[in-house]
């Protein structure tokens, strides 16, 4: 029995500690990779030829499309973390979910902002209720709702399960939302804005785009790991403050 109990406390304590050691080593490396990839990606982007249709606005694509991908990837990372919370009750899973949410919101916001800046010269309006922008807007609301939920609890450990359950419920429904919004869009605006949907993109655009996507991914993982480290620190501070308070009250009692 004692064996089991100690095993449990290793799960509860040592793992975040081991994670901290790993994170401290990994973050500088990730940061270097992120900066290098961004530099290469940007260099390639600015050296890409002018698109015959979009002119130089194709430059916006290189930073817009990856944010939209990252917005979705971040949600997947959060959903995986949510499974970790629900199935294994692993504290690190909750730390990961919580830290990813603001990053997801940031990428989603960037996708909307750069999309809007791309849309103005292309479609002539800042905001078009087209299928993609609308779905991304809904995703942003979901992210902000989850962040609000994570902040609503006094005791952070109490937020873990609600956050995980809500994240996974969203994960199950997001494809339906995407589908319904696409459907709604074709109903109201018969394929007027999807003119950029060219099946094949020339390699002169594809390669910079892919490198930029990898750069954004590296940025995400760097920031995610840094945010996770912060979250673990916050929890340690909290535990320490609580144990200090307890010790104080115990002293007062005797």
């Amino acid at each position: 029995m004692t064996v089991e109990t100690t095993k449990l406390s290793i799960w509860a304590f040592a793992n975040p500690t081991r994670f901290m050691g790993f994170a401290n080593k990994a973050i500088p490396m990730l940061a270097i990779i992120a900066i290098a990839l961004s530099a290469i990606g940007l260099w390639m982007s600015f050296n890409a030829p002018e698109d015959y249709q979009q002119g130089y606005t194709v430059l916006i694509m290189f930073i817009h499309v990856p944010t939209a991908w990252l917005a979705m990837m971040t949600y997947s990372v959060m959903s995986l973390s949510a499974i970790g919370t629900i199935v294994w009750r692993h504290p690190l899973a909750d730390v990961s979910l919580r830290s990813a949410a603001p990053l997801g919101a940031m990428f989603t916001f960037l996708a909307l902002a750069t999309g809007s800046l791309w849309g103005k010269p292309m479609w002539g309006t800042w905001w078009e209720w087209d299928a993609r922008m609308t779905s991304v807007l809904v995703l942003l609301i979901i992210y902000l709702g989850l962040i609000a939920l994570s902040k609503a609890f006094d005791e952070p450990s109490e937020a873990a399960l609600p956050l995980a359950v809500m994240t996974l419920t969203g994960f199950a429904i997001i494809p339906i939302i995407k589908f319904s919004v696409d459907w709604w869009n074709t109903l109201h605006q018969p394929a007027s804005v999807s003119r950029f949907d060219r099946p094949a993109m020339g390699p002169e655009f594809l390669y910079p785009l892919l490198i930029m996507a990898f750069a954004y991914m590296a940025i995400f993982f760097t920031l995610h790991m840094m945010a996770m480290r912060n979250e673990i620190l916050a929890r340690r501070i909290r535990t320490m403050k609580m144990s200090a308070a307890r010790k104080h009250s115990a002293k007062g009692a005797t």
Partner: protein
Amino acid sequence: MLALLKREILLSIRAGGGALTGVLFFLAVVSVFPFAVGPDTKLLSHLAPAILWIGALLASLLGLDRLFAQEREDGSLDLLVMQSHPLALTIFVKALAHWVMTGLPLVIATPLFGIMLNLSPLGIGATMITLLAGTPAISFIGAVGAAVSVKLPRGGMLISVLVLPLVIPILIFGVAAITGALEEPAPFTAPFLFVCAITLFTSVLGPLAASIMLRHSAD
């Protein structure tokens, strides 16, 4: 489980006439629209399906924050969770009761509001049937929102923020189905079946997710 349904319905009748309040809220929402868009009957009848659906959506969110929080405060939640019944089934019944007392009265009241908004009989029929098929999904998804905020003293606003984006598909297909019934080239059956499918899907997903939450929410 029938006993639970009966209790829930009794409760919402006793405590402030739940069904009536929902319909009143619906009436209030529907009647402020003409003030905003003007009394043009043509425009109103064009917007009517959307107005009715938004009204129903908002009215269905009423009382969601109390769905489990109330049970938790008076200690009933512990007893509901302890029994051998599958917890998801208990939650399903509670969500169903919530729908019976908020969604269903709206469906029944729809003809009246449809007439006020100059909707044709066909449009009223289509609105009723889509609301009947679609509003339960709001209660089922709402149950998840209610479960995750069960410990929050004022979760009402948060539930709305969490639940509204998730019910967009129902709104889209619901209104599209009504439009389909009224305007010729647009289809009715396809969006209506989507509404039904989403309701069936959420009737499983919602109670399951909420049960994961409530099983471990005790403290």
